[in-house]
């Protein structure tokens, strides 16, 4: 693996992990609200959360560009604070987070819905506050769903192309993740060998993530049912 390829791999992992770390707490919160609360406008809220799943990624990228560009309504507010997304790797992470968000929420929500709410009530009568019940009963029992959702979102982040290239372009060393690098390689003469090597790296990373999540789910199950 050349130094350039290593750089691309690390950038992809960085984008994937940062997008996951940033979206996971929010997704768990949203999943809990969707699973356990009823409120007016819930259907609309649910639809908005799922929007990135059904929209063309290019559209998401364009909307991000409009909102988070340095001239955009949100981007111009954040710029003085030193937070810039446009044409930065952080923007690639933001795009990846938003594209993976519905997958994460769906998996976590299903897992939370499968937790018997009466176990949570039992914990309340034993003296636990709502927050404590969530962290000691609901979340641990939903852990396998969280792991599954995290894998899906991470895989989605590693494969993210359309929204990324539209929002943050294809800048070597900054926003050129694995899919963008593979695409670039296929656009130059004799780039096929490079594209193939990058593809193999992609496959290995995905298999690694799959194996890791499988191992975590199994370990959790063994813990719960031994």
């Amino acid at each position, binding site marked *: 693996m050349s130094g350039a390829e290593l750089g691309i791999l690390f950038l992809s992992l960085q984008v994937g992990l940062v997008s996951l770390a940033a979206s996971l707490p929010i997704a768990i919160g949203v999943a809990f609200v969707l699973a356990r609360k009823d409120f007016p406008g819930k259907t609309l809220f649910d639809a908005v959360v799922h929007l990135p799943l059904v929209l063309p990624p290019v559209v998401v990228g364009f909307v991000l560009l409009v909102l988070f560009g340095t001239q955009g309504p949100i981007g111009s507010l954040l710029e003085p604070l030193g937070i810039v997304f446009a044409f930065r790797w952080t923007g690639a992470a933001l795009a990846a987070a938003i594209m993976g968000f519905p997958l994460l929420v769906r998996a976590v929500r299903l897992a939370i819905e499968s937790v018997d709410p*009466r*176990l949570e009530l*039992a914990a*309340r009568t034993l003296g*636990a506050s709502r927050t404590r019940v969530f962290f000691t009963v609901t979340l641990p029992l939903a852990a396998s769903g969280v792991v599954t959702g995290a894998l899906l979102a991470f895989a989605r982040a590693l494969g993210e192309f359309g929204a990324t290239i539209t929002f943050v372009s294809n800048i070597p060393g900054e926003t050129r993740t694995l899919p963008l690098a593979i695409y670039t390689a296929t656009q130059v003469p004799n780039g096929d060998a490079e594209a193939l090597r990058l593809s193999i790296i992609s496959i290995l990373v995905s298999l690694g993530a799959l194996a890791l999540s499988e191992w975590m789910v199994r370990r959790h199950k063994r813990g*719960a049912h031994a």
Partner: protein
Amino acid sequence: MLEVDVAVRRDDFRIEAAFASDAPIVAFFGRSGSGKTTLVNAIAGILKPERGRIVIGGRVLFDSANGVDLPPEHRRVGYVFQDALLFPHMTVRANLDYGEALTPLAERVIDRERVLALLGLQALLERRPTSLSGGERQRVAIGRALLTSPRVLLLDEPLASLDGARKAEILAYIEILRDELRLPIVYVSHALEEVTRLADRVVVVSEGRVAAEGPAAEVLSRPELGPLTGRFEGGAVIEARVASHDPRYELTTLAFAGGQLVVPNLDALPGEPVRVRIRARDVSLALERPRGVSVQNVLPATVRSLGAEFGAIVEVSLDMGGVPLRARITRKAAEELGLAPGLQVHALVKAVSIDRHSAGFA
């Protein structure tokens, strides 16, 4: 002291209940769907009553008039659910620790080692809930609730999912808790024999209201409970004391205000109070003291009243020196004997009709 006066609505079901109890064990008795669990959930703070007041040991848990509504985690009630609801992702030890760790040190009045010993939990500590039997799960659930040092223990049909042997085992544990820990217990059940055996005071819940309430012996003897207890289970409950044992025939003699009662061996010391339930269908009547009869209990009684006739059957209310008894006989027999209020008769009760399940230690 437990004081409840609430109206609770759940979906399209509504229950109103008002009662007070300072008995060691008060039972909520009624059919499934009568509102017993709804009432317990209101006490635990899981359901919010529309209006009313709930006070336990002088501590106001809920009072709609003054805007008091303590969340479940501040009510200090030990709630044991019908199906135990142990945390499946924790060991028995972690389940037991869960509530205890959340109880402030100053409030921990129940000794952990004692609870573990009383409920026989030592050997189960490292097990997972999924590997426990139904009875073991209930014991852990009771232990988990007790370790929060609650002011009251709520047991919602704790025997419902258990087989006969396990039922007897848990019943014995509950009696030990009552005697050892001096903790008021609310016992929810639809099983007459459980209520007879355990409860000192009974709140009969039917169709969203309290149908009867009072001391167990009095309430459980009321004829109007027939529809609740089932046609064939109606009867009277007698408070008695163990007088003597007869090891040769394995019989126990009980003494009560209306005379003596011979029953198959009861595992109790002489002098111990017991409650015995005598079903109306197990009582026959005779005008004169019969001779040459196998029935061991022949009790002088006075006919108080004849109940409503249904088909071939009439139910006779009797009085034995102030203690009520009921007999279910045929209309034909009642006519032939010329039964009428005030008539002196002899009530015949077969000793074997009183089994261990109809007797409880008061």
